[in-house]
């Protein structure tokens, strides 16, 4: 790799990183606005016009607050917890194809940091690693409520990872590849995978809610039972990192769902637009389409949060083990039979 290529890759990584941070920042604002809309309120409207500077004010507050490490906490692990949470949230974006190859001044730049041939499994591994941030933080706090939150997070993640993996297997039968770049390419035009895998998509969606600890599955930080769950003892920016990690996770999982099921950067009539706009602007338009779809999914996450109440813990486990896993296995069998006999 030449120096210029390395520089371009580095720039791409920085841009993607910045985009995910800004999206996460404004997700907090959007969440409060969406909640206000659903509850017939105004929402934050003091900092700047329509309150759009609210995330900056929140961030500043988080940075400036007093940092407290409880006396009985395990000091080092107490800091490792939130660091790990934010790290695992950020590295998932590396394999997501954000668009087709852009040609700028005769130089083609792929809008994907790396297209490893086990892309889906990489995402899956990052997701499964994400629970350690919560577990280590919850345990190191040396608080019963935190520990309960950590334990809930662990069992919830393990349970929903299984059905998530099984729903992906059915998708792999259709696509025949593990690379996210190729999966995105195959969904050219309107051939989106959700048409072939509607049940798989629903399963994946439910599991994504559970893996990102979003309502109705936010049992690890269930404030009615556990004070604040795993982050009860956290203050200042370490708490901020936990909350921030949740929003980045939401962004990444929305992007993954768009890539796997909702056609990634593809849209009907993209060939026509490609001829019209050329090699530079058409892929950027594709990126815009992908971004809009991702934002729609983030809105969907919020919509669910302010509509459906939280599950009870036994209901959560029943749903995971007795409904989702059998459904996912049935989905694999049906997909396999259909592919064997009709292709």
């Amino acid at each position: 790799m030449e120096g210029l290529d390395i520089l371009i890759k580095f720039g791409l990584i920085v841009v993607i990183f910045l985009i995910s941070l800004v999206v996460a920042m404004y997700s907090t604002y959007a969440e409060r606005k969406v909640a206000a809309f659903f509850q017939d309120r105004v929402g934050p409207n003091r900092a700047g016009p329509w309150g759009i500077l609210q995330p900056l004010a929140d961030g500043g507050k988080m940075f400036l607050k007093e940092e407290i490490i409880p006396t009985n906490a395990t000091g080092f692990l107490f800091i490792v917890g939130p660091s790990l949470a934010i790290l695992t949230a950020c590295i998932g974006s590396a394999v997501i194809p954000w668009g087709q190859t852009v040609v700028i001044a005769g130089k083609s730049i792929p809008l994907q940091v790396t297209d490893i041939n086990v892309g889906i499994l990489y995402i899956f591994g990052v997701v499964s690693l994400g629970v350690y941030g919560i577990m280590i933080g919850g345990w190191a706090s040396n608080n019963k409520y935190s520990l309960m939150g950590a334990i809930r997070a662990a069992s919830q993640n393990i349970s929903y990872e299984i059905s998530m993996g099984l729903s992906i297997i059915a998708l792999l039968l259709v696509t025949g590849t593990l690379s996210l770049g190729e999966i995105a390419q195959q969904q050219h035009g309107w051939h989106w995978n959700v048409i072939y895998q509607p049940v798989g998509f629903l399963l994946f969606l439910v599991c994504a809610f559970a893996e990102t600890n979003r309502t109705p599955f936010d049992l690890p930080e269930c404030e009615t039972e556990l004070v604040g769950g795993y982050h009860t003892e956290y203050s200042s920016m370490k708490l901020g990192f936990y909350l921030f990690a949740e929003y980045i996770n939401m962004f990444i999982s929305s992007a993954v769902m768009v890539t796997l099921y909702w056609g990634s950067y593809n849209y009907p009539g993209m060939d026509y637009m490609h001829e019209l706009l050329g090699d530079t602007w058409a892929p950027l338009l594709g990126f815009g389409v992908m971004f809009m779809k991702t934002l729609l999914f983030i809105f969907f996450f919020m919509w669910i949060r302010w509509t459906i109440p939280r599950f009870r813990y036994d209901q959560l486990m029943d749903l995971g083990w007795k409904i989702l896993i059998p459904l996912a296995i049935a989905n694999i069998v049906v997909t396999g039979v259909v592919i064997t006999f009709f292709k």
Partner: protein
Amino acid sequence: MSTFYFIAFLSIFFSILVISAKNPVHSILYLILTFFTFTIHYILMNAQFLAVVNFIVYMGAILVLFLYTLMLINLNKESEPVKPFMVKLAAVFGAGILAVALVSSLKVLTHTSDPVVLKNPNLGLVKNLGKVLFNEFLLPFEVSSVLLLSAMVGAVLLATKEKEPKPTI
């Protein structure tokens, strides 16, 4: 090559920390790091699929369960089981014999092949691995899956409560 030796050093270093750590939760965390170095070993050998599966299954699932169980158990100094001296001695002796057996079996191997350099560098990719598993080694593969299934059924059987007999009046 030097990367291999560095990572191998880290593997051994962390595994020593696993057994020397006083707190069981800390030893699990060191074990996670040890498995992470194994993932790097797989990547060095171009076995991306194995690397990711090791990552997901061992680091992401099994060790989470380990940690989960340890967090539930009350681990105080008082509840720590104290083994008699003879049992400890027997354990050290048995492990020593195992080490001798392993070293001697590896000594035979070093004459035929270098463990660091692979004959077929693409062996670990998904396509090749799948073809080998489902053609050459189909029977052992299926048998081991049946073994896992039976273990699972056994665990469920042990975990279910026995129905209490109805009281006879």
